[in-house]
């Protein structure tokens, strides 16, 4: 695929932005395969990708002085973005708005630039260092990473992975198989269609709210991050809490509990309804709260 991508990328159009005093605007359109692979590189500013029902790519770029040069080219495999200045570092931001065929596979790389994707149905691979990442629509897969920026995925997708260091993670919209990993960011997940969910944090708080799908399997693990489960009152779930020093509180009305204490820590089993969903919480010392959703 990559070889084909490289072979097809025959012409790269380079538009030079001389260093004017005011921001410059570039517009460029080119035909594209309906399932094109599109790689976007924009370190500073913002990148917005919008899927549309045309077999073409339309790029609108606004460049502040010192942002670099715009490049774009390809057909089945398209590369576009901002080539930063080779000397002196990036002095200005670039705002990219890119319309792509809805079935495209999209890869975006940023430093402090934010990334926003809406309406793309192919796979998404999005990386920013400090910028926020936001996804909406129904992509086939989503992989999103940001060290310090916030990640928000509100999408109907079978598979999503989100990873931050200190940025928050918000997941909603119906993700069948999700994994969220953070060191110190807060993770919020709206439970709905998840067949499988795994959430990991060190000190970051984890909040799961809603009604988990019956038969789903959830695994939540923190070191000291608080875990809050705000579940619909008619949720069917068995919640196994393993903790060494965290306080466990359950405020759900229909709960049967048994506590097993030994040197290895304590385990609390909370059964709501018929226990059709498996939720396992493991924490070293984070407090765990189970309560009915407001």
């Amino acid at each position, binding site marked *: 695929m*990559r070889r084909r991508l490289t072979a097809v990328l025959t012409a790269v159009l380079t538009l030079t932005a001389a260093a004017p005093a005011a921001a410059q605007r570039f517009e460029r359109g080119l035909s594209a395969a309906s399932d094109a692979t599109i790689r976007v*590189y924009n370190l500073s500013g913002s990148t917005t990708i919008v899927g549309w029902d045309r077999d073409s790519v339309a790029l609108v770029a606004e460049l502040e002085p010192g942002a670099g040069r715009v490049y774009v080219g390809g057909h089945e495999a398209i590369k576009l973005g901002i080539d930063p200045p080779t000397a002196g570092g990036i002095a200005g931001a670039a705002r990219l708005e890119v319309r792509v065929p809805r079935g495209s596979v999209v890869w975006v*790389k940023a*430093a*402090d630039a934010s990334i926003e994707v809406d309406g793309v149905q192919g796979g998404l691979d999005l*990386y920013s*260092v*400090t910028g926020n990442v936001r996804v909406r629509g129904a992509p086939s897969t989503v992989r999103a*990473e940001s*060290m*310090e920026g916030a990640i928000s995925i509100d999408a109907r997708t079978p598979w999503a992975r989100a*990873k931050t*260091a*200190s940025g928050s993670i918000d997941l909603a919209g119906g993700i069948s198989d999700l994994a969220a*990993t953070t*060191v*110190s960011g807060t993770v919020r997940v709206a439970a709905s269609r998840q067949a499988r969910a795994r959430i*990991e944090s*060190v*000190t970051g708080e984890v909040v799961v709210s809603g009604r988990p799908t019956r038969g789903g399997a959830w695994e939540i*693990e923190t*070191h*000291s991050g608080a875990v809050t489960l705000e579940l619909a009152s008619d949720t069917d779930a068995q919640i196994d809490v*393993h903790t*060494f020093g965290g306080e466990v509180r359950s405020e759900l009305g229909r709960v049967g509990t048994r506590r097993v204490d030994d*040197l*290895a*820590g304590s385990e609390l089993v909370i059964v709501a309804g018929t226990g059709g969903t498996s939720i396992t919480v*493991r924490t*070293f*010392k984070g407090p765990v709260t189970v309560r009915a959703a407001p």
Partner: protein
Amino acid sequence: MNCEEVRERLHDRAEGTLPVEDRRAVDAHLKTCLACRAEASELEALLSAVAELPREIRPPRDLWHAIDARLDEPEAAVLDRRALGRPGTGLPRWALVAAGLALVVVTAAVTSVLTRRYDEVMALKLRRSDGEAPVAAPGSPTAPAVDQEARFLAASQELLEGLESQDLSPETMAIVRRNLEVIDAAIAELHAALERDPGNGELTRMLLATYQRKIDLLEQAARSGEG
């Protein structure tokens, strides 16, 4: 080759099945790419660990002895007992029940042995990760695991050193350092807990998971330098 192409070939490279040309290209990439090199090292360590898993697991000798003795009984004795059983099954009902129970006990024992060995290995790994010398005696069953762990630590150390020498922005490095401090504090707490309860498998597992998060963070930071 770019990072994605290289990573698709790392498994074949580790198993020695990669064509020569591809191998050269992958090796050339690994010389310059920190993140891929770390992934290659981790994969090699994992495959080595898998290769060292025992091909045969025997239950504890005291439990195995009785069953072993039964298997070694003269055929005539077995036939004599069969003669007392119901036609068709070859064994009396009580013997079938006993055999079933024995199977359960053996399975549990094997699981216990595996778990204990896993915990021992992990405990060694954790002590080493604090900079202590390997405590496994030469030739002991855990010595290979210590070797694996040494490779794992070397890879993570290389990743960290590489990050520090990589041309990452000061802001990015500051984020990395802040979060490494958070993780290291968690690791220290888990170490302290393990000192109080050294045989605790769940604590060991949590500690390893936290180490994995540290590696994940370093790899994530390394990716920020990729084109």
